[in-house]
């Protein structure tokens, strides 16, 4: 019934002007749907069957993308009420929680989606590493992914300050002081980031502009390039895919008239090169259906989180009274644990090494072994090094999160240390 109505609507002159193809009935139309739609043409008309298998990617990148979209939508809605001023920011948070209809749910969704996005970006990176999917010709897309990872952390960190409560104020005070430890330029960077010496009105406004315009804009552009390159680099990595070749076509080989088609110019690895047509299925409806399903699951999960768990809001920011202990956001607690031994190591050297190692990874690990295979036995060394670093960071993060009590003293989570308030 609904399908019939929809088909009728698409059959009208207006419907055809918008959708061109309508609901596809033949394979030709299934291809046309993917090619002629702006949103759908991000995907090829046909994809390899492996792409549809859940175990290939676990849907991690897709979930990250959906979380980003949800963050933009909820974030723009929150902007209608939020005022980036030290006097009014906290009031607007209270308004959102108690006065604005659905304000609480939207803020919760934004908060939990932000945390989830950080988690899923990390999981996505682990998936790409453990399936060897960053190897040639996908090296540069991995680098873009690393930049997107940093942007995600920056987005989350700048958003952390905006509620202007104790949690926000001290997390940013601690976090931005870490930047001050960078040699030579550290103090200058901190000063420009905060627009002053301490976290105040200038810092709040700067973080706000970064959070709502600059960083999301940069992320959006890079996400576009990231997805585009997935296609251009031959779709998802799979074992036995044809080796990457960059054929240089001599200029004389081109026809002298402009009547040649694009296929005469495009060479190299494309999803269709060297594959039996039998291994491929139409994107519509196979892939589209699964993508919509994942989207619905993500929205349901977020709604459940947002309805049953409220985002934290502590008391109004108080620059003279840090909470004991004062902790950075959870994804920086591994670094903060290191910072409690040495600020230079934890705040500058280790994070710089992590970023440099991640960027250099696909250019150092050039063996074409284990592409598209989970935990390939041919990659024992690479897998071990990555896993050791990963486990170390996770252990440090857990220690920083739950094993550190007042005065950053060691405690066991089920028996927290209690220190009397002083002053």
């Amino acid at each position: 019934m609904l399908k019939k109505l929809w088909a009728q609507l698409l059959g009208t002159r207006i419907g055809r002007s918008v959708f061109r193809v309508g609901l596809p009935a033949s394979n030709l139309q299934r291809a046309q749907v993917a090619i002629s739609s702006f949103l759908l043409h991000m995907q090829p008309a046909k994809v390899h069957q492996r792409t549809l298998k859940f175990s290939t990617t676990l849907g991690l990148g897709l979930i990250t993308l959906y979380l980003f979209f949800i963050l933009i939508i909820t974030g723009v809605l929150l902007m209608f009420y939020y005022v980036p001023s030290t006097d009014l920011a906290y009031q607007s948070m209270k308004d959102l929680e108690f006065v604005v209809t659905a304000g609480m749910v939207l803020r919760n969704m934004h908060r939990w989606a932000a945390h989830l996005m950080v988690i899923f970006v990390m999981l996505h990176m682990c998936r790409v590493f453990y399936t060897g999917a960053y190897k040639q010709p996908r090296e540069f897309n991995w680098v873009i992914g690393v930049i997107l990872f940093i942007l995600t952390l920056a987005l989350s960190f700048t958003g952390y300050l905006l509620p202007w409560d104790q949690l926000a104020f001290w997390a940013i005070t601690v976090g931005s002081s870490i930047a001050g430890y960078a040699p030579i330029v550290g103090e200058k960077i901190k000063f420009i980031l905060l627009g002053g010496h301490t976290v105040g009105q200038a810092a709040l406004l700067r973080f706000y502009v970064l959070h709502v315009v600059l960083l999301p804009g940069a992320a959006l552009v890079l996400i576009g390039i990231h997805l585009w390159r997935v296609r251009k680099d031959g779709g998802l990595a799979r074992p036995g895919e044809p080796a990457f070749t960059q054929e240089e076509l001599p200029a004389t080989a081109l026809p002298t008239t402009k009547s040649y088609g694009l296929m005469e110019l495009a060479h190299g690895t494309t999803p269709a090169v060297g594959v039996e047509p039998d291994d491929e299925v139409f994107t519509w409806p196979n892939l589209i259906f699964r993508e919509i399903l994942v989207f619905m699951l993500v929205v349901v999960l977020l709604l459940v989180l947002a309805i049953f768990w409220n985002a934290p809001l502590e008391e109004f920011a108080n620059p003279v009274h840090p909470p004991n202990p004062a902790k950075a956001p959870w994804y920086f607690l591994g670094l903060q644990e290191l910072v409690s031994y040495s600020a230079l190591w934890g705040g500058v050297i280790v994070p710089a090494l992590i970023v440099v190692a991640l960027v250099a990874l696909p250019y150092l690990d050039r063996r074409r072994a284990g592409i598209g295979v989970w935990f390939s036995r041919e990659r024992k060394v690479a897998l071990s090094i990555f896993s050791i670093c990963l486990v170390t960071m996770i252990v440090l993060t857990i220690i920083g999160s739950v094993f550190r009590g007042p005065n950053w003293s060691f405690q066991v989570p089920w028996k927290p240390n209690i220190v009397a308030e002083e002053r």
Partner: protein
Amino acid sequence: MNSMSGANSNRRDFFQLVLGWGAALFAFCASLAGAARFMIPNVLYEPNQRCKLLKPEEYEEGATFIAESRLFLVRKGNTFRAVSGVCTHLGCTVLRNSKGNGFHCPCHGSQFNENAVVTGGPAPRPLPWYLVELSRDGRLVVNAAHVVAADKYLVV
């Protein structure tokens, strides 16, 4: 350009490189520098570095926390000193020790003795001591822009 004779083409290449690309590069760098300088504020709306306190006799023996300037005024008999309350590690506000003979930071557990020298924890430097003066109307003035040695007192 391939139809040009050698010398002519070289000169043209040279001008194209130096004037064309040079001008483009200069314009780009100048815009970038201007934008970068724009981000450095010329006026800071932050609390005054000089902070006027009460009269000396109004302060008790030992360290008193001055909240608005985040510093401690330390009285010992008729001598006065002022020390920063901002931890040199990551900028948290330090607390007095329960024994009253030093400071500690609640964020990462840095310890400072009564002269604000680091005795434990990750803090890289001692807390700075500030110049304490007496104003004309007999009130204490702390100048946070002026760091002094730990053994410099104001004797009243």
